[in-house]
Every structure is written in C-alpha cells, then in structure tokens.
C-alpha cells in the first residue's frame, strides 16, 4: 500500500518532468591534453597516446637500431605502411602513427620517408618546380630516399558483454619489416583492457 503511494508520487513527478521537459545547460572547461577522460569506453586519445608511448620506448631500445647503424653508418629510413583496423570500432590509426613518427624523428635516431599519398603530392610539387621555380631553387628528380624499413600493424579487439557490463580487450601489433630482405626487425605489441559498465536503470 505504501509502496503503491510511493510509486504514485514517482509517476506524478515523472509525468511533470515529461510535461515541462528539462532545459539543457552547457559548460566548457579546458583540460590538459594528457588528462585521461573516459566517456563512452570506446577507443580514445588516451589509448592512442598509451600505444604510441609503449611502442616508442620499445622500438628504440631494441638491437635492430644499433645493428643497422653499425652496418650502414647512418640512421635507418622508415616508411609507415598501413595499420589495419580489425576491431568493431572506428579507430583513427593515424593519430598514434603520427605520435610515433614524431617521437622517432625527434629522437634523431630514425628518419621517416613520406608515405605513398604524401609522396604523390610532393612529386607534383617537384614537377611544378621544373616549370615555375628559379634554377637555383629547383629540386631535382630521382633524389628521393628509398626506405629501409616499413612499419605495419593491426588492431584487434575481443568484446565480452553481459547486459550493461562490457570488457573490451584491444591488442595493437606493430612490426618493422626490412624492405630489402622481408625480414622482420622488430615486433611490438600493446594490450589495453577496459571494463565498461552502464546502469540498467535510472530515475
């Protein structure tokens, strides 16, 4: 009996909310890009950063780098291939690839070569220079650096779900393949596991 009354009050309150609606208010606050903010539980900038950090420390600490330098007396030229998304989420892989590229170039120990699309644009520019640039600033053809290694990879997920609870397991695999020999010089992996919980009820 008492519960019925409580329910009644609840419904009355709810019906009033329905009738009058509720206003929306918006606030904006600036945060440090390194802050971890998880909203939906989907792949986000923090995951991207974590992957880049892990891969960089790993790739720079492995023997392939000093071996190459000892052999060729110069830092290796690396090109970024594709990082395939095999998950059930749309993931902007370019974000962490760019992070990776930046850190590796800034370390001064690896050089990066422009990828296919970037090269195409640069080549168009070079062709344009042949017609329009002054002789002393015009850049020559066939002076491009051929890459020594290609960085490739993929991201996979396993999702386990039970009602509003979800466990998401991501694995990012990256590998550095020697373009001349097809040998794999380095394999890196980063695992990320998340527990996402959504309540089944609200008032």
């Amino acid at each position: 009996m008492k519960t019925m009354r409580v329910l009644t009050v609840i419904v009355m309150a709810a019906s009033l909310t329905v009738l009058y609606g509720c206003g929306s208010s918006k606030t904006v606050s600036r945060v440090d890009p390194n802050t971890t903010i998880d909203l939906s539980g989907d792949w986000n900038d923090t995951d991207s950063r974590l992957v880049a950090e892990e891969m960089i420390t790993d790739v720079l600490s492995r023997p392939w780098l000093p071996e190459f330098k000892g052999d060729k007396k110069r830092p290796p030229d690396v090109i970024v291939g594709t990082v395939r998304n095999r998950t059930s989420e749309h993931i902007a892989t370019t974000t962490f690839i760019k992070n990776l590229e930046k850190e590796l170039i800034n370390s001064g120990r690896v050089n990066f070569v422009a990828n296919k699309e970037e090269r195409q644009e640069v080549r168009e520019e070079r062709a344009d220079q042949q017609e329009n640039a002054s002789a002393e600033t015009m850049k020559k053809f066939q002076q491009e650096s051929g890459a020594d290694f290609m960085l490739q990879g993929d991201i996979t997920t396993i999702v386990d779900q039970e009602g509003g609870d979800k466990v998401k397991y991501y694995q990012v695999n990256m590998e550095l393949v020697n373009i001349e020999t097809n040998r794999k010089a380095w394999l890196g992996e980063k695992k990320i596991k998340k527990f996402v919980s959504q309540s089944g009820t609200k008032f």
Partner: protein
Amino acid sequence: MQETFHPPVTSRMKLPDVHTKALWFLAAALSVVGACGPVQDLYKSIDVSIANGDYASAAQDVRKQEDGYGDKSQVLYNLDLGLLYHYAGVADSSTPRFFAAERLIQDLYTKSVSLAVASFVINDNLLPYEGEDFEKALINVFLALNYAEQGQGDEALVEARKVDLKLREISRQYEGKNTYQEDAFIRYIAGVLYESSGEINDAFISYRNSYETYKTYLTSYGTRTPSFLLDDLVRTATLMAFTEDAATYAEAGGKRFDRKAKPQGSLVVVCYVGKGPIKQQATSKVSVPDADGIIHTFQIALPKFVPRYTGNRTYAIAVRNRGGAASQASAVAELSENVTAIAGKTLQDRLGMIYLKSGGRAVLKFLAAEKAKSELKKNDNSALNIFGSIAIDLFISATEQADLRTWRTLPAEFHLARLNLDPGDYNLTVQSSDGKYSMRDVQASVKPGKASFVIVEDLR
C-alpha cells in the same frame, strides 16, 4: 483481431489500497503526453516521395517534421533520415545520422524507472522508442553499405562486426531462444569485403557462416541461399587450397574454379525492394478475477507487423564493357534478406515479454478502475454509479494503445546479385520484372581482385 490471454494472477486476488485520486491525476497528466511518437499523417508526404524514388525530398520532409516525431522518437527521426540519405546516395549525410541513432539507443539501455511505471499505467507510447532488435542490427548493415559504396572496406568491416556483436548480445537476452540470431546477408557482405582486401581465409569463413545461416533463413523466413554463394565458397576454398571444402561445395552446385585463371573483379548489386512492414494494433482480451472470484475481462492493445509489399518483382542486371572488347554479362538479383519476415519473427519473439508486461498493465488498470468504482459506490446515487462505472471503463480503454512506432522507411526485401567480370569499365542496366522500374547506363569500374558496390532502390 482478438486473442484471449490470461495473465498469471490467482483467483483470490487481494486488491491493494490504491491511492485513487493520485492515480487519476497522473493518468490525466500522462494521457496528455500519451499520444507521443510520429503522427501517421507525417508519413503521407514522405511515403509519396519514397514511392517516386525522390529520396532527397523525403529527407527534406523528415527534417521539416522533427517536432512531429517528438523527443520520444528521436531514434526514429535519425533512422529515417539516415536511411533516406543512404537511398539518395549521400553517405556523408547518412552515416552521422545512423551513428546518432546508435548512440541514442545505447543511452536508452539505461531504462527510466519512472517512465517504465508510467508506461505500465498508461501505455508504451510514453517510453522513448529504442528500436526493435532487427532494426538495431540493420543500422550497421546500412552503415557497412555506406562505407562499402565509398570503397572504405576496413570501415565497412567494422560495421559488419558490430552486427555480429549486437546479435550475440540480443540472443543472450533471449537465452538463445530467439529466431534472428545471425544475419546471413551481412556475413555475405563481410565475405565480399574480406576477399576484396585480399584476406581470402577470412572471406571463406564469412561465406561459410553466411551459407550456414541461410540454411536457417529457409526455415525461419522462407529465404533461399543465393545461388552464387556456392561459387564464392568454391573459389575461396580453392584459393586457400582447402581441397576437401572446395570439392564439397562444388558437389553442392558451386562452379569449379581454376587457380591459374586471370584475376577478375566483381560487381555487387544490392537492390532494396518494396516498402517495409508497418505495425498495426491488435487487441487481446485479458481476464482478471477480482477478490470475489468474479472474472473481469479487459482489452489490451498489442502491436503486430503487417506487410506493405507482397509482390514478387525481380531485377535483371546487365553489364556491357565500355572498352574495346564488347564483353557483356547479366544476372537476376536474388532475394537475400526478407526484412518483412525478419520483422514479424523478431516482434513475435519480443511479444513474449510484451504480453507479460501488458498483462501487468491491464491488472493495474483494472485495480485503478475497481477502486474508482468503489469510491463511487459511497455516493448513494445508483444512476450516477452506473454512468460513473461506464465512464471509468471507457477512460481506462482509451488510454490503452499499442506502441505502433517502427522504422517505416525500411525496404521490404534486399535482393543481391554478384557479377564476376574481367577488369574494365562497364555500363550497368537494371530492369524490374514488372517493367515499371529501370536504371540505365550506370558506370561502374571493375578492378582485379576488388569488389565494387552498386545500390539500387525501388521502394514502391
């Protein structure tokens, strides 16, 4: 249509002391908003534009009617808009709408207790519409086709995997007793996409899953396995050197494949055929015994899918090479997903729960009515009593209304054709068997080892 239904109540039911006045107040308050959801008139102009193949205008109409949909049907608003943009071939406008709908549906997983109580007392139209199970899965099917049409295979595959995840979660809720547990169509599309990206092993697995699912499609929805699927199985099995599998599928009718053959590409034509089903109200009778053991029978309203397309149109597809070699090919698109049949089955499966819930709703209404009548009896005016009782019953019946909201812009059927062709540029022509629809000279290019998607809409 009337069915009799008995909710699980004992014959000696004790009436709780309902706070009648409060209940009346909320009933009155809620009945004001009870008529939520898109008004049927809303669809008049949209339906006409769709039948004429003018999807851009239909999308315009939907946008103008956002208020008509109401805030309880925002999922439908986004679904309708997303699908109409998809029909119109504007993937860039369609995809964000589908994502918005998906996000809203996800948020609606968290149920509002207050609204749920309200829906018990009044009807389900008070609840935000979160889509039928098959509608939730079809969002990702259309998203996959949006990406596939734009040549973004990896992103399309993400959507195909999402269909799988969703159906798995839905089946878990039904303890695996539901009919629509897997989608054969999207598995086939995933196979095409894997093959197109050179992952033959994954392609073979997807084709095989599709083939297995089509076996259940035949018994559940009367949909046969598309004939070309066996060819795809033989081809990918041969390429993977799965000799036993290749032999099995060839024996079942698949075309044998020569590994040394010059690599071909393929054109995959998806046809959307006919108007999808709509929901109509069907009333059922619920009998509730009162404290004295007297049976009172109430009506409850339930939704039921009715088909809007019952034709058997087929679509002939012809391609002609635009280059020097005048090679040509033709095929008839085959029924590969019967949306009307899937809709009917999934609603039927869900009705188990709705029935129980509606039974509960009828009981609550009955209790409210009984209490109101007993309050009336305290006045010693028998004439007023009779009229009062009738008025109360009428009011109770008036608030009972089935939730008829549904994704109305869906097609009734998907037909599919696959043409394996030598690389080159082709002119494509599509002609319906009733002669009332044709699409001429659509240009499509075929690249070795790749699949190109062409989408055809005839939603008459």
